[in-house]
């Protein structure tokens, strides 16, 4: 994949940061995150992202994308994290698009261009209630029918599943021991019931129950019944990368906001930033934030270069990011004192976003366990 050079990356970075800073301030986030808002995200902004080519940045060229890489996607996700953006990047551009790109036939890949133009959104309904963070635990069954398949099962809360044009649903073909397949299920298919809710950080989604949902044969991604467990692994690793980048942006912003607050807030006759204990705390936030950014960048590069140890680097980056997000988010509230506990200030919302970034697709403890159990196949 032809990655952007440094100049192009700087331009992309400046462009996305500039957009969010001028069009997507905290008040805008508040309006969108209000339960009374119809969508819970900005549909007009989504179209704008498409027009600016950002939704297609990691999509293949034959789908109208730029075929750049994860690093470019990371630059966009970091800016989205800085702005607390609520649009369905993860669900559509990362999870859904990756599923189609990795598993779809050339004909099925045509869906990607609709994603790039902003006219088609997806949700990734893979995790199930008893799966926890485990990636391969799927009991949803795809019964073979005359016209295709009939899907039945329970899927846990998935981002954007309440509003997506289609759901990418994982299911085992035939019975519980069958190969894992991925299906593109139109949102309007009958037999789908949803429980809609929002996460702690105000992103909407739904848990989904499928009861004999009939789909035709070509809804199954790929041309055979091959098992897609390894594909799901790759999809989820991309999502892990995306939230690492998102968290990097959020941490950078919240650390700066905390520096600004302590510089202006006065108690005991002087700005709080004059107290050495608090200065060191700000330094610790900075170093922690930087560490997460650096680890994320290293993993992005490994993915873009298809390095043999890319997965290990991704998992390690997640662990580092999780540690940093927990520390930086928590200290951001602590250092703001009572003000940090209000809904009115942005700080608490960054804390909530970082809490989700830390835990989505697996937390530090989970990935440490995976890393410890890995059979050492990474190259040295």
């Amino acid at each position: 994949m032809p990655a952007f050079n440094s100049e192009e990356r700087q331009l992309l970075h400046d462009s996305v940061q500039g957009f969010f800073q001028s069009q997507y301030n905290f008040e805008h986030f508040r309006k969108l995150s209000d339960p009374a808002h119809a969508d819970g995200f900005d549909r007009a902004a989504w179209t704008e992202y498409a027009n600016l080519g950002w939704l297609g940045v990691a999509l293949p060229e034959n789908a109208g994308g730029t075929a750049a890489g994860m690093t470019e996607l990371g630059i966009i996700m970091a800016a989205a994290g800085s702005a607390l953006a609520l649009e369905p990047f993860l669900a559509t551009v990362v999870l859904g698009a990756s599923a189609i790109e990795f598993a779809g036939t050339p004909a099925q890949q045509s869906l990607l261009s609709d994603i790039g133009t902003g006219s088609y959104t997806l949700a990734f309904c893979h995790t199930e209630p008893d799966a926890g963070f485990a990636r391969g635990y799927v009991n949803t069954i795809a019964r073979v029918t005359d016209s295709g398949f009939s899907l039945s099962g329970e899927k846990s809360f998935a981002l954007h599943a309440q509003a997506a044009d289609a759901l990418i649903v994982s299911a085992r073909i035939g019975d519980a021991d069958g190969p894992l397949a991925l299906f593109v299920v139109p949102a309007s298919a009958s037999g789908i019931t949803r429980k809609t809710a929002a996460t702690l950080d105000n992103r909407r989604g739904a848990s989904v129950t499928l009861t004999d949902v009939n789909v035709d044969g070509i809804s199954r991604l790929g041309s055979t019944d091959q098992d897609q467990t390894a594909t799901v692994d790759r999809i989820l690793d991309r999502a892990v990368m995306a939230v690492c980048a998102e968290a990097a942006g959020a941490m950078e912003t919240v650390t700066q906001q905390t520096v600004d607050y302590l510089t202006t807030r006065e108690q005991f006759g002087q700005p709080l930033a004059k107290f050495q204990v608090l200065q060191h705390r700000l330094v610790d936030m900075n170093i922690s934030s930087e560490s997460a950014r650096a680890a994320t960048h290293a993993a992005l590069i490994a993915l873009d270069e298809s390095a043999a140890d890319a997965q290990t680097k991704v998992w390690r980056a997640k662990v580092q990011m999780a540690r940093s997000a927990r520390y930086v988010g928590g200290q951001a509230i602590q250092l703001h004192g009572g003000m940090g506990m209000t809904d009115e200030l942005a700080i608490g919302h960054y804390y909530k976003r970082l809490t989700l970034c830390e835990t989505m697709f697996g937390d530090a403890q989970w990935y440490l366990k995976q890393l410890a159990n890995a059979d050492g196949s990474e190259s040295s």
Partner: protein
Amino acid sequence: MFIRTAQADPSLDVFRAEVRAFLAEELPGETKRKQELGQFIDREEHGAWLRRLGARDWLTGKWPKEHGGLDWGPEQFSVFSEELGRADAPPIVPFGVNMVGPVLYTFGTEKQRKQYLPGIIKHDTWWCQGYSEPGAGSDLANLQTRAVQDGDNYVVNGQKIWTSYAHWADMMFCLVRTDTEVKKQEGISFLLIDMKTPGITVRPIIGITKGHHLNEVFFEDVRVPVANRVGEENQGWTYAKFLLGNERVGVADIGKFERYLLSLQQLLNDTKENGKPLAGEPEFQQKVADLEVSLETVKALAADQLSAARRDGSPTLMGAAALKLRSSEFQQDALQSIMDVLARHSLVYQTDALHPGWNGDLVGPDEMAGLIYEHLYRRAATIYGGSSEVQKNIIAKGALRL
């Protein structure tokens, strides 16, 4: 070192049984269910529960008999608090019973005691605390709300913030500035203010929990009788320090902390990963053991403070600060572990579920909304009651003499 001064007291076991029996009989099932789910309890329901305790004089059991109390020692009060915490009863709001009550019976006039103490003992009066201001948080002495004498009244102008339950309160005890020419601490007075007085505006502050118990309170030419001043003019800081010292006799909420661990264990039993309960994961088993160690330490620190209170009449400065520090850290640690389990359910936060009577669709476990609320709320545990940083300063200056 290791010199225990408290004797085991068999009568405390009898009392503990009495409190448990009372809770089993008198804590309404409906209230208990709401508490289990972390649902909001309104003024009527919370007040009704406090009045039941008040009917037994148990709200003010620690008070001296001469002022309407039951002369409980620190150990008896500790047993009482623990059992209420274990039963998940709605909390005893401290502003009357732990704060302004003792200030009144120590520094108030006979007339003030007669007027206000009965309402505190029986919970006929809701109190709130007018202390912090936007410019006076950790540096409370920096407060600016002004009270100027005009005949038999003070005229009060200014603003208080972080005022818990001001929207429910009948009365506020309020620190005001009555002298701007002297050192900050020497120009403060302690006023009792009727919340129905014209000129008072209460504005809700919504927390990161999306819940409401805190407020801003604005005073615009509010006339408060001079007779409502407690003690001498400009001596208010002394009474405030007395009150804060009294607050520190408040023990760590051991009963509640035990319930956190019970909730965690229940969640570990009920939440599956790869089809198997998380309770079987070594990492979680170790974490539970880790938290049990921390809780044991907090209990031991609390027991030491009880001994000190028995021996010297109050906890030690260092001991009280250390207990507050470690209790708040334990609380956050336990709730964080609960959040780690709930993360398997995507941390969906349905605040609607916190309102009794909502019958929408719950995503995830019944207890999730209430537990996420509690986790968010207790991010303030290291901020309220003197932040962790302030507690360390107290220890550094007061105990280590640095």
